[in-house]
């Protein structure tokens, strides 16, 4: 299968360090003593917990319900007892806590009743719903809920579906082994995606340093009877970035502001396809994943690991060297040191690297930028990192946006090649988070301003309406007065001529004083009316406990009053409560 490959600019070739963990087949990691399963494991809404402490759960039982369309369910990774639903530290650089379901396994690993289905008998909506309920998310690292990517654009025909088996990050080999050992199920999973999206072509991209995986995939494609193309792409970090792989295989460049579907492409990771197949054809939700355990360890290897397994327990299986001083989750280019060795393995955990200074020597001190441009040449998005660095440092965030900071995918190529050892990506993350924070602040301020302005507007409108009402009443009063005056003054004349000011045709001279009089009268009337209204209001405002009385109470009160009058205790009142009578 010969095809033209495209190139993306930049990229780097760090030592791949993959052979260490490729020596042995995938092993099943034992069930740990305790599982801490975070509810928020995918992009989108945080699933709602549906279990509480004390509940017995089975393997695959729903413990977190998807919250909204872009959200994916979470399941118990093994059978056991929920001991807690509480905040625990997350495998995230921030070191923040999030809600987790803590399960004490019973060791039986007993499944819920699994319901394998033939997805071809289902409607596309049903398939997507099943994937969501099975917690299928992008396992390449971005953990975007997969069902959300399986609706074809209505306007742009789906041309290519790109399946990402590039695995460009050094050290990581879990996709490689998955393709070697479980290619058939990966291919079948791709088949589901293909049937939902109906692309013209399916392109499976694998870096050319994984010939075994590519061969296994080719064989599986043939065995399943599919027409997918398995394409070996040049090994060049970050060829496994979705946008880079799409570029290499299709020649299309997806800008930051667009979705790949706008260009008729969609991209999935091989492991995602595998879990999708397990979910549909075996009824198994995502409760485990393959994790490469490598780095400063005696026995690097790939494990099938239950989600929620504490990382330190997993790392022990590979016997870390004594000088291990931390755990990196992910690869050495984009990964991060976890804030606590006990943080759980999550769906995004593709690799754990035991960190030591021997493996990753401490960085030399940061030097000033010499504008050598090595970063710009390495940047796969063709940005000018040294300019963005300059403006990030100066906190001139507007300028960083002019230099397209939000197109940065934080792949780390720039930091990798920088001779001045500037942690460029850190600067860009800082700038981005500052920009986001400021935008949030600005939005909040804008909203407050909008609310305030609306309030002001409303008050002004009410004031105007009130004034209008008053003016109308006053005018009516004045007209009445003028009419009376006119009637009194000209008793012999026809009354039709009386309201002089009202008709414009009548002589201006007599009209003028009469208009002034009317105005004066109107003012006076207004004042009087206002005073009367105020008086009435005052009276109305006076609390009267006798207002809302039942007839019985009224009678009783009247009787008491009569007695008091009879006893000459008080002056007799004309009526106990005229207001009340009037009202009823």
């Amino acid at each position, binding site marked *: 299968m010969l095809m033209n490959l495209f190139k993306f600019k930049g990229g780097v070739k760090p030592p791949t360090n993959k052979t260490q963990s490729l020596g042995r087949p995938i092993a099943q990691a034992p069930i740990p003593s305790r599982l801490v399963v975070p509810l928020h494991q995918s992009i989108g809404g945080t699933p709602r917990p549906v279990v509480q402490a004390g509940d017995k759960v089975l393997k695959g039982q729903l413990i977190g319900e998807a919250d909204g369309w872009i959200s994916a369910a979470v399941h118990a990774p093994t059978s056991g007892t929920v001991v807690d639903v509480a905040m625990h530290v997350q495998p995230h650089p921030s070191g923040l806590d999030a809600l987790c379901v803590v399960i004490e396994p019973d060791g039986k690993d007993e499944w819920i009743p699994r319901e394998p289905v033939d997805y071809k008998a289902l409607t596309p909506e049903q398939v997507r719903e099943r994937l969501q309920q099975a917690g299928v998310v992008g396992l390449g690292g971005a953990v975007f809920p997969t069902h959300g990517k399986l609706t074809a654009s209505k306007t742009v025909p789906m041309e290519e579906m790109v399946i990402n088996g590039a695995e460009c990050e050094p050290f990581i080999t879990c996709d490689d082994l998955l393709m070697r050992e479980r290619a058939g199920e990966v291919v079948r999973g791709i088949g589901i995606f293909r049937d939902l999206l109906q692309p013209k072509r399916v392109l499976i991209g694998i870096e050319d340093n994984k010939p075994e995986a590519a061969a296994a995939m080719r064989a599986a494609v043939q065995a399943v009877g599919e027409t997918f193309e398995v394409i070996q792409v040049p090994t060049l970090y970050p060829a496994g970035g979705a946008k880079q792989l799409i570029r290499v295989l299709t020649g299309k460049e997806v800008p930051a502001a667009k979705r790949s579907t706008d260009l008729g492409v969609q991209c999935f990771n091989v492991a995602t396809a595998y879990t999708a197949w397990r979910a549909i054809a075996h009824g198994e939700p995502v409760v485990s994943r393959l994790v490469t355990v490598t780095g400063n360890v005696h026995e690097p290897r790939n494990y099938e690991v239950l989600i929620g397994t504490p990382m330190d327990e997993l790392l022990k299986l590979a016997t870390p060297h004594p000088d291990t001083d931390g755990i990196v989750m992910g690869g050495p280019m984009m990964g991060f040191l976890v804030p606590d060795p006990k943080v759980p393995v999550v769906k995004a955990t593709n690799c754990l690297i035991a960190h030591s200074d021997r493996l990753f020597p401490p960085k030399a001190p940061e030097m000033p930028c010499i504008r050598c441009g090595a970063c710009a040449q390495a940047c796969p998005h063709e940005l000018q990192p040294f300019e963005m660095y300059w403006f990030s440092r100066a906190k001139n965030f507007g300028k960083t946006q002019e230099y397209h900071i939000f197109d940065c995918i934080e792949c780390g190529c720039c930091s990798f090649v920088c001779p001045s050892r500037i942690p460029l*990506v850190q600067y860009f993350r800082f700038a981005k988070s500052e920009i986001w924070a400021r935008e949030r602040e600005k939005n909040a301020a804008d909203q407050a301003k909008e609310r305030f302005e609306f309030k002001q507007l409303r008050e002004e409108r009410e004031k105007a309406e009130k004034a209008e009402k008053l003016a109308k009443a006053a005018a009516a009063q004045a007209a009445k007065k003028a009419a009376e005056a006119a009637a009194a003054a000209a008793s012999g004349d026809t009354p039709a001529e009386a309201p002089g000011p009202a008709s414009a045709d009548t002589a201006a001279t007599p009209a003028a004083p009469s208009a002034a009089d009317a105005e004066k009268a109107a003012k006076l009337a207004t004042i009087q009316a206002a005073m009367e209204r105020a008086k009435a209001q005052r009276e109305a405002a006076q609390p009267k406990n006798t207002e809302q009385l039942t007839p019985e109470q009224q009678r009783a009160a009247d009787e008491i009053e009569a007695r008091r009058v009879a006893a000459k205790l008080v002056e007799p009142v004309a009526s106990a409560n005229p207001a009340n009578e009037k009202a009823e």
Partner: protein
Amino acid sequence: MFAPAPFLLKDTSVSQVMTQVCIALVPGIAAYAWLVGPAILVQLVIATLAALLAETAMLRIQKKPLTIFLSDGSAVVTAWLIALTFPPLAPWWLVVIGTLFAIVVAKHLYGGLGQNPFNPAMVAFAVCIVSFPALMSQWPSVGLQLPLLDQINVILGLAPRVDALSSATPLDAMKTALKLGEGTQDVPALLANQDIYGNFAGRGWEWVAIGYLLGGLWMWQRKLITWHVPVSFIGAMTLLSGGLWLVNPAQYASPLFHLLSGGAMLGAFFIATDPVSGCTTPRGKLIFGAGAGLLAYIIRVFGGYPDGVAFAVLLMNLCAPVIDLLTQPRIFGMKNAGKGDKA
């Protein structure tokens, strides 16, 4: 423990970059030493010491870490470029003044490493040729082979500066002859009859230029520099000199003569490629190199100075920020967008 990704780093550093630039200068220096004797090595040592001294003083004043910044090698590169552009038998204090000015004023007063808007070595050259035009124009006659001790004595001012030490550069001699001749002299005859001219350009100097060319190509191969600046510098100078030469070969020397004379090769590969003071975008580099090449030719042929590379580079340094601003490349995903950028 604060150690953000990437955890893997390429084996590279500023001092490695600078060291490789120095290594790339070696072929040119070797040819130079073969041509005029060991004096140039003495000048290199004087300039290096002066630069390190000035650097130390300036770092002390700013309370910057000495070992890190002294070992970055940037001061040495500046010093070497100064030594290689000054006359090889220039008095020691001239080289020291140039170097001090470069390090103290052109580099540190503008903020130090990475901040200087002008190429420090070219600032030094410009300052000295304006301030000491006579001394800066005295080049040793061809074939003058003084022993090392005599050369040191001349440099240190212990021996008199005799006439044989003060001829013009081949480039300068050509310009002067053509000017004084007012049309009676022609280039081919001058090249054929005067023994300061060799096969292509100045006798011997042409080989020094080829040494720089080799070093430059090595830097390109090592990816220390990109092809843009040297190609556009050489291309622009070739086009302009070639055009005039085709029109009037009697009054204008060939492109080959110009490329192998004076500081053209050093400028194209080592000076105009300075990333700090030059352009950084690909198109910007092309404009920068072409501008420097054109200006260098114009100044050396029509101007009053023996060579134009220093002024050409400084003038282009002035334009570099604007050129960069106007030549920002399209980024990934925006090439086919058609509508320019979204900002």
